[in-house]
């Protein structure tokens, strides 16, 4: 069951829609699991779909599995079980087989200081995909022209092509990375926390750049972040991940305003206040300001340190939970304020609420549970 997509204005029709069938997925995870050597289960039966021409957001914290999804989507790793397809066909094995597929995927990763080879000039960095995929404009004068054009499009007009990445700030480097991602005219754009390492005032600029690029080139976009607010502004459909599983999917707006899964709600509640009068988190001993009443079931996630007491070094995003024992239970049960016995004994399946939303919870939150 792939994440469904409400119709979006401006996106090209993805072929005649047969009644009841979802738009074809460019990248589809079908019950994919990934277990690393050493036993760590990074993905547990994950089903996701990036609709052609649409956008999908993956939201989760460290250990949620979202980065593993990106690695699989880029062909950097193979699933241990399940089926991973690109435009309907399975991901080929081997570098050579993957190359035509990779030509269609542009990616922007988190660390702008790591993702660009410091020994390559920015011209070489940006032109690299053209060279690798043997596209025109990869070398010589032609490359200079093409690269200059791309750099201007990402807000670096007139940049010195012979300069090195170290000359640029974090935001500048991400622009270079975006230019590189788009130069080969891919059909898919994958962004993994592209703004998390950047200053606040630069983040919006980079995100807007990505949104513009997506709109102008009609790209399918997979956007991965830990920021629930950001994802809500950037994509149509959101999948929330925890402990290697998808716990909820749905339209961005609904996920933000009216989540079904307690973890989504907890994630939302963990975001700090907008105004001092609304402070909840550090409320004890806060001094003379009024604090909003923090009810017992405010949804704050009980600390991971409880898991640590039990002997696991638990990540906030759920990885590191005891292996086999947790498999047949809800992955969030140990930290969920609404958990009951059933949650610990049975693994909740993904329940489709309607064509748009689904969640994996036996006791979902009712509508309007979150203002």
């Amino acid at each position, binding site marked *: 069951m792939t994440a469904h997509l409400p119709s979006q204005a401006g996106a090209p029709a993805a072929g005649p829609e047969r009644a009841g069938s979802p738009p074809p997925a460019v990248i589809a995870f079908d019950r994919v699991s990934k277990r690393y050597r050493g036993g760590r289960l990074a993905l547990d039966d994950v089903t996701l779909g990036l609709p052609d021409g649409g956008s999908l957001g993956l939201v989760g914290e460290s250990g949620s599995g979202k980065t593993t999804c990106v690695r699989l989507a880029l062909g950097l790793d193979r699933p241990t079980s399940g089926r991973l397809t690109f435009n309907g066909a399975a991901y080929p094995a081997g570098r050579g087989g993957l190359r035509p597929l990779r030509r269609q995927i542009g990616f922007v990763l988190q660390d702008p200081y790591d993702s660009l080879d410091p020994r390559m000039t920015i011209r070489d960095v940006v032109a690299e995909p053209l060279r690798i995929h043997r596209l025109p404009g990869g070398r010589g004068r032609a490359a200079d022209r093409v690269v200059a054009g791309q750099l201007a499009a990402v807000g670096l007009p007139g940049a010195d092509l012979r300069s090195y990445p170290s000359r640029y700030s974090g935001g500048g480097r991400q622009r270079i990375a975006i230019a590189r991602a788009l130069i080969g005219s891919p059909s898919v754009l994958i962004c993994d926390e592209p703004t998390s390492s950047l*200053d606040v*005032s630069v983040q919006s600029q980079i995100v807007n750049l990505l949104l513009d690029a997506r709109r102008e080139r009609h790209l399918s976009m997979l956007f991965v972040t830990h920021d629930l607010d950001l994802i809500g*502004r950037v994509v149509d459909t959101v999948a929330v991940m925890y402990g290697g599983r998808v716990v909820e999917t749905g339209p961005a707006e609904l996920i933000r305003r009216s989540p079904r899964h307690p973890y989504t709600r907890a994630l939302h509640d963990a*975001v*700090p206040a907008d105004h001092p009068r609304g402070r909840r*988190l*550090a409320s004890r*001993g806060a001094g003379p300001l009024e604090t909003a009443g923090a009810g017992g079931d405010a949804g704050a996630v009980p600390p991971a*340190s409880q898991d*640590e007491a039990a002997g696991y070094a638990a990540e906030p995003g759920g990885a590191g939970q005891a292996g086999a024992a947790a498999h047949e239970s809800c992955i969030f049960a140990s930290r969920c304020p609404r958990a009951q016995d059933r949650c610990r004994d049975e693994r909740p399946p993904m329940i489709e609420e309607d064509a748009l939303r689904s969640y994996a919870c036996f006791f979902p939150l009712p509508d309007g549970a979150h203002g």
Partner: protein
Amino acid sequence: MRIAGAGNAPALEISGLNVRYGPVHAVFDACLTVGAGQVVALIGETGSGKSSLALAAAKLLPNSAAVTGQVSIAGREVSGLDAGEFRRIRAGLLGCIAQDAMASLNPVVPVGRQVGEVFAVHAGMGRRQAAEAAVAALAQVEIHNPAAVARLYAHQLSGGMRQRVMIAMAMALSPPLIVADEPTTALDVSTQAEILRLIGELRARVRCGLLWITHDMGVVAELADWAAVMYAGRIVEVGPVERVFDAPAHPYTLGLLQTRRDLRSGPVGAPLFQIPGSPPGPGEDPGGCPFRPRCPRATEVCAEVDPGLEPVGADGGLASGEHRAACHHPAAAPAGPADAPAAAP
């Protein structure tokens, strides 16, 4: 500037602080006060000078940095002390929490011992006593099973646990001032929420001044009594936190608030609000107000004269002079759409 309400000496008083790294002038004439038991959020982005200011106040900058100005902690003048004198008293005066807990803990020494060191060296405790005190300190920061955790190494702990260890180390001798340099920036949002909650708990129990550096306005809203905004090495706005949120005077502060508000509640698919341009790089100083290239209110005087901190408007009930901004055209009224810097991407 003293903050009313505290009977004791201010936890931190900085005046005329300048920090230079060779030719680069990182902090210009900074003046800041953290009242006893007060939380002051120091807000800024990369290159704003916030870390330099905090490190200079904590006397943790390398010798190659040129620091001038006055720094007093808990009423005690420390800027004039030499390294040796300060070293002897610092643990009881000032605790520091760094941003990257993984890098800030010695990887080959168990964390319990690193916490215990503070007790052993400064409280004159013997080995066993210090170890017990360390375990107690870890329990204070809500680490379950602190005795077992004390034997672990930094790489065996999660990010949140490591940060708790740092907090335990900083608060070990209950110093009157804690300087925290973006302690939750690298943490996941739910871990950050835990740490913020912990800080709230600790403040209810232990009265200490806290200088908290961040770029996240949400964290400021949660924690701070006072907010100070830095840009290009200068403090450009300072005031009680509610006032700064309700009526930001400096366009940069307004921009930061707008950015967050837009992110949180803007419509799906619409471009994000952005402050145009980018902060000046290190060493860039074209003269006049440093924010001018990005400011919608900029006029000629802004290009020529670097504004200093001046009081902003006098409200009934608010002592004039407590809300200050470094701007030739500060906004006097609560923020409205007309005051917003250009939203064009």
